[in-house]
């Protein structure tokens, strides 16, 4: 019997705010343990939560970017459970009235080759709700240590429908969410910092069956590759259990990305009973059209839309766009440079950014924003190469100097004497005439149809130019003169 896997993902995304979601102590990663707490975070008696407007703005924006319906009214619920990561013994979340409903995530599957765009599809979402993150437990040999810095950080939970069928789809889904959230300025989505976390619900069923099979929840998928590997591993495991005549049990499994294995977590003696009820300390949120439209106006173009536009309007190859698009700043830099460079030069601009610029940034360990290269200086450089003033090899040298000093390309060219010679078209023509005159044998051969004979004229010209003559211009000039000779 043929089986198919059914995958639903629960993706947690930390919202990038200055303060926590229900109190104003600072939020952030990498601080000394327990330095980001206050009486609300620690649930001291008598404290009351107060919503963070920026966190609400961010989740509504996320919902708009993913095509969700924004609920006109949503409320807060308490999810009760005992675990030391939550000092209140409940987590403030949204149960039956989430803020974002429905929506979808556009994904791209791997193409036939690296330079070919893959198939696109839309994965439907169930909902997105806002909740507070919990503290971090550091498990030791005999006890655990609790750090409440993370507790109370605004956290979105993006829940997909059980609509994915392969590990590749899950990987593409997570990648797309990550790019979209980064574009929207909603989160940095650094998985190493726990800003993006993922649990997967995986089941298998005979192809054609519409009912869902027994679900296994896979936890600790703490890198995007682990998500792919963990899901692929779990699907294989389930197929093997069924093939061996076994029966799958509903359980939570922990995936270890280092060893590529998973193990069942000691299942609770009883199923979860969160006893949700409305939080009496927080008033509901009403989202009107004006608020929604204000946020919609702040929404950036989605990464895939931008990529389609780059392919269409700038005619840059797919491989270049797939380097530019994931980073919003880089794609904006490209667009600004391409517009300044003018028609027909976008591909050259894209090449400079995808190759030289990224290489230099990475070698200098600099973020894009700290670079001395500007869209204007890059556009100028591309222009110098296009008109023949600068040869490719020399342009590379100019670029490195521009990157180091921030000088305009023309200034570097002048300072280092890198301009192609002669700068005067008339002088080049003279060199070419002299070369043709000096080699009547090659002239005869060329006239007789031997195209390669033209190379015999090039040597003396290049010599006259001390290697800095533009081969393309030399070729053009020679052909023009030979046609009339």
């Amino acid at each position, binding site marked *: 019997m043929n089986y198919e896997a059914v995958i639903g993902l629960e993706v947690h995304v930390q919202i990038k*705010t*200055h*303060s926590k979601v229900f109190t*104003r*102590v*600072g*939020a952030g990663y990498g601080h*000394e*343990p*327990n*330095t*980001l*707490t*206050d*009486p609300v*975070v*620690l649930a*001291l008696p008598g404290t009351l939560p*107060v*919503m*963070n*407007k*920026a*966190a*609400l703005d961010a989740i509504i924006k996320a919902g708009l970017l993913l095509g969700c319906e924004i609920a006109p*009214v949503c*409320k807060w619920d308490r999810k*009760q459970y*005992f*675990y*030391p990561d939550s000092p209140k013994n409940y987590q403030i979340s949204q149960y039956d009235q989430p803020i974002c409903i429905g929506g979808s995530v556009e994904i791209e599957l791997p193409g036939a080759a690296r330079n070919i765009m893959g198939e696109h599809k839309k994965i439907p979402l169930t909902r997105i709700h806002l909740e507070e993150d919990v503290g971090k*437990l*550091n*498990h*030791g*040999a*005999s*006890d*655990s*240590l*609790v*750090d*409440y810095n993370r507790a109370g950080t605004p956290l979105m939970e993006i829940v997909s429908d059980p609509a994915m069928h392969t590990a590749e789809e899950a990987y593409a889904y997570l990648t797309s969410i990550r790019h979209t959230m980064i574009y929207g300025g909603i989160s940095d989505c650094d998985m190493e910092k726990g800003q993006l976390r993922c649990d997967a619900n995986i089941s298998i069923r005979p192809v054609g069956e519409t009912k869902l099979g027994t679900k296994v929840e896979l936890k600790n998928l703490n890198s995007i590759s682990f998500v792919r590997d963990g899901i692929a591993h779990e699907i294989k495991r389930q197929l093997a259990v069924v093939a061996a005549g076994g029966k799958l049990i509903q359980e*939570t499994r922990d995936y270890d990305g280092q060893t590529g294995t998973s193990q069942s*977590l*000691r299942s609770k003696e*009883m199923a979860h*009973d969160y*006893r949700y009820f*409305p*939080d*009496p300390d*927080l*008033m*509901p*949120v*009403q989202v009107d059209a004006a608020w929604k439209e204000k946020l919609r106006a702040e929404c950036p173009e989605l990464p895939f839309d931008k990529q389609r536009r780059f392919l269409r309007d700038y005619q840059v190859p797919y491989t270049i766009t797939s380097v530019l698009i994931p980073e919003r700043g880089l794609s904006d830099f490209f667009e600004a440079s391409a517009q300044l460079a003018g028609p027909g030069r976008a591909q050259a601009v894209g090449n400079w950014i995808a190759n030289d610029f990224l290489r230099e940034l990475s070698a200098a360990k600099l973020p894009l924003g700290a670079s001395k290269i500007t869209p204007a200086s890059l556009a100028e450089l591309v222009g110098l190469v296009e008109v023949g003033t600068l040869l490719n090899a020399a342009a590379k040298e100019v670029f490195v100097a521009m990157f180091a000093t921030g000088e305009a390309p023309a200034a570097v060219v002048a300072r280092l004497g890198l301009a192609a010679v002669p700068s005067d078209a008339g002088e080049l023509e003279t060199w070419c005439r002299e070369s043709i005159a000096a080699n009547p044998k090659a002239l005869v051969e060329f006239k007789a149809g031997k195209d390669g004979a033209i190379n015999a004229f090039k040597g003396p010209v290049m010599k006259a130019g001390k290697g800095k003559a533009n081969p393309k211009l030399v070729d053009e000039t020679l052909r023009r003169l030979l046609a009339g000779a």
Partner: protein
Amino acid sequence: MTAPADLNIDRIAELSRLALTAEEKVRFSAQLGSVLGHIEQLSKVDVTGIEPTAHAFPLHNIWAADIARPGLAVADALRNAPAQRENMIVVPKVME
């Protein structure tokens, strides 16, 4: 008042993390029973045409701007902790 038959005091005790003696189970079962009795009474009220609401007052959108304030000093934050190490609270080893 006696406890209703479907009141599972052991389950409630577990969820509340309380170790109850046999005598306490009987006593609290009775007390919870009267709370449930009260709820029973409430559920008899005719609420046709009344919209469900989480709050008694029609207040919405009570929030603050996202401006961070300093919080507690670590020493203060940990003052209630029965045990601490490396500026963190020590709890019994727990694994989900």
